[in-house]
């Protein structure tokens, strides 16, 4: 990341599309301004040489033996009850007993 690059309006629109968000005409320039302000601040991370530092995605990576590694984290493969279907389907905006209903999927 260079220390000067800026997010264009076009990039804001592209990221909104990737996020399935629809921004209004007023929101677009505001989000552009905010993203540039925050990303500019984030770029101070460039001051650090991290070439020999492994990335840390999870706390368990630094705990060594304290947290069990993958195998012990797996539960036994046995049948157990899951949620009842009826209250789950009842929470949906549009559903019948078995399926969630959505608008037309294939657009022409």
């Amino acid at each position: 990341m260079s220390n000067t690059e800026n997010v264009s309006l076009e990039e804001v629109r592209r990221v909104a599309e990737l996020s399935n968000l629809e921004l209004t005409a007023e929101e677009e320039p505001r989000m552009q301004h905010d993203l540039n302000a925050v990303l500019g601040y984030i770029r101070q991370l460039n001051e650090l040489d991290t070439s020999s530092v492994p990335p840390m995605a999870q706390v368990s990576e630094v705990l060594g033996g304290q947290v069990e590694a993958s195998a012990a984290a797996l539960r036994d493969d046995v049948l157990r009850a899951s949620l009842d279907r009826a209250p789950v389907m009842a929470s949906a905006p549009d559903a019948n007993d078995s399926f969630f209903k959505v608008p037309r999927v294939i657009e022409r």
Partner: protein
Amino acid sequence: MQTDTLTIDAVRDAIASKKTTATELAEAHYKRIAAEDTLIHSYLSLSRERALKKAAEIDTLVAKGDPLPPLAGVPIGIKDVLTMQGAPATAGSKILEGYRPPYDATCVARLEAAGAVLLGKLNCDEFAMGSSNENSAYGPVRNPRATDHVPGGSSGGSAAAVAAGFAVATLGTDTGGSIRQPAAFCGVTGLLPTYGRISRYGLIAFASSLDRVGPLTRSVKDAALLLETLAGHDTMDATSSHQPAPKYTAELAKPASGLRVGVPEEYFGEGLDPEIRAAIEKTISQLEAAGCTVKKVSLPHTRYAVPTYYVIATAEASSNLARFDGVRYGHRAKEATTLSAMYRKSRDEGFGTEVKRRILLGTYVLSAGYYDAYYRKAQQVRMLLTRDFLNAFAEVDVLVAPMTPMPAFKLGEKVDDPLEMYLADIYTVAASLAGICGISVPCGETKAGLPIGVQLLGPHFGEPVLLRAALAVEQAQQAGK
């Protein structure tokens, strides 16, 4: 009944000795909520029927002379990012308006199984994203100690309810400071347990490598009691730890003398309010007087914690919040005639500005061409920040530092500048990234009467020692009054 000073022990004693009943106590809280929460706005919904049913069960136990569970009749409020079966779960967002989840969060079920009476769901920033509770789609919470000030966030309702006498204790969640900072702003105790210590099954996810559940209480002992109830592995949450949970209240009986206390110099730099600095320095000398040895330590990467946090938290949020699509639960836009338009419109109508901002930022730092530069870089700095703590804890048992750079600010003061709001998280986010435990304990107030909190930090699964040090701070405070 005075509800604003009750502790868990006081409730148990009053119920066991028949000075009051669990039902009377629940009603006294609801009465107070009805009278005063119209101003404070800490509750989003009340679970009166479920609470009174549980209270009646406790009263029957008392009448029969049966043994009482550890939290018998204790009125507790739940942050509205945790599920209670059949009760609204909004996460402070319009996108979940009307949703009633079909199951209890594990922490909710464990509290109730221990006898707690669950009063209702507490206001918070939308999807726990915020430091002032002003991002709630249902309106902000006011700080009970100064009602034109914010209560902090995102667990603002949880902190305010304890401070105002609307619950004896509450559950909050902390992703980047959301339990500890509002606890400091409202003058209550807030515990951030080690990552994995408490199950997150039933927590609406914000950033999964950071999110934690923890209690807000009126005393260190109450925090220890709730941790004792909540800690332990849960088969429904693969990230919950198998480490056995000690009896935390028994650990409190051990003295604080001999503990090695570290003072990280980076937490006392520019921008720290002078009244807060003075209160923290006084607390450090009180710990010394209690027999602790105090030494300076360095956490050299501290200044990089906030930028690191806002890459990792937003990246994870952009992924977690993809599930809100108008299909299985929550808001669906009415007009959309195609599936993709339905997704976009539902999310546009349902999410507030701060949530959209963070989804966009998180999507940006994960997108092709920027992943290594931002996301991977932040993960590497996260490792450096964590090593800072591991190095410090090789020399000391606990760290002591300010909780916030300034006391509670006024409503509306920072809402127009997201970056300035993020910078207020300077003392909270490093511990979140490292996964260590921490606690905010009241340690005085400003001349204007605003509460000040001191932050204590302990190593991974170091809650026993952390709580002992916190108790020493609390006792010194009470002795000084």
